[in-house]
């Protein structure tokens, strides 16, 4: 799995960082998301899929390999 993030779309909701804290965080100043791990371990895939699904800006795209 590869995590693609469209930063200009991010609305800083932080849903991703709550659902998948090992893969996403937020910048301190404006809350825009940061991808900590663009190729997460398979054990994290379910929560990363959940994070992409709850993103209110559809800014997270997953390429499943």
């Amino acid at each position: 799995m590869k995590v693609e993030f469209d930063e200009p779309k991010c609305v800083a909701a932080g849903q991703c960082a709550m659902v998948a804290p090992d893969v996403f965080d937020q910048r301190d100043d404006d809350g825009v998301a940061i991808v900590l791990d663009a190729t997460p371990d398979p054990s994290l895939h379910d929560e990363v899929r959940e994070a992409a699904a709850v993103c209110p800006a559809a800014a997270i795209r997953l390429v499943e390999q």
Partner: protein
Amino acid sequence: MNRIVVVGASAAGLAAAETLRREGYDGTLTLIGEELDAPYDRPPLSKQILAGDWEASKLALRTADQLSALRLELRLGAVATGLDREARLVHLADGGSIGYDGLIVATGVRARRLPGQGGHVLRTLHDAVELRKRLGPGRRLAVVGAGFLGAEAAAIARGLGCEVVLLEPAPVPLAHAVGDRIGRILSQVHGEHGVDLRTGVAVTAVTDGGVLTADGALVEADEVLVAIGSRPNTEWLEGSGLTVGDGVVCDEFCRAAPGVYAAGDVARWHNPLFGEEMRIEHRTNAAEQGMAAARNLLGAARPFAPVPYFWSDQYDLKIHAYGHLRGHDLVTIVAGDVAERRFLAAYRKGDRLVGALAVGMPPKAIRSWRQAMAMGASWSSVVSEGVPS
């Protein structure tokens, strides 16, 4: 279960359809959408689309490849007109009907309008594109309703050089949602940006050359945006036996009846976290509830108990709010400085922390409040000690 029908192809319906596939449902999956566009995102309509910063194509919630991977029977431009639960059929405006074993209702809301001709509303991509075309330097725009949508549109129109008058019937905009004090703070920015905010002004009709107010005055404008809230799209469920009352009434599992679930703006469900029935028109709730309804339709039996969340962009203000602020007893500023428009307000109801609203605060300062709410924290356990840890 071999046939699932999802009525409504916006954020909630799409999330439900995706979740059904992700959870292994392999049968027929029909997604019915009234609009002709493939599922798209609505919050940018009153922001980047109205400003002209984004092309409409950027709103697509999924690529064509992602949609086709869901193996949907995608029925766009199809309007559901009736539900026969006995025969398990959804009737369509074209005279056809679609059978189901499981049904998810995600038909959303539509904008309320005023009597008279010619006012814009802002709910669909088409609405936003039409309004955008008519805004520009020197154009006079009257926005009726200073809720979050009206406030966002007023801010964008100002940025485009319009002369904007913002009309609000209540004495303080947003007071019913965020409280009197915060409503005042948030509405101050309009005047600073040259928007003519007039409170205590009820508009009765859109008319030639502007809007008519309750005292018979004409407020002149070239264009009128009516932003006075919305109505759930439930008319098609009349006679279905489902309980409808400002939305489709559901239990804590988003279940309206055996085999029938509802999600998103149209769903009124019992949120066990707050012990209250609610209907939430927030973008994040649409996705989360679509997912929850789909899982419960497949048998998960998990109560849907979210902390609601919304955000709003107005001028350079970024507002984030968690919880269920309506009906609160008390608001208190727990961090930051109101004068600098950088603060966090906490909302109390009974002895519960029920909401937190932040303006210009670092995200991590807000997250702990959300977590406290998710755990059902009492007010005294968090506020007397300051910021929750």
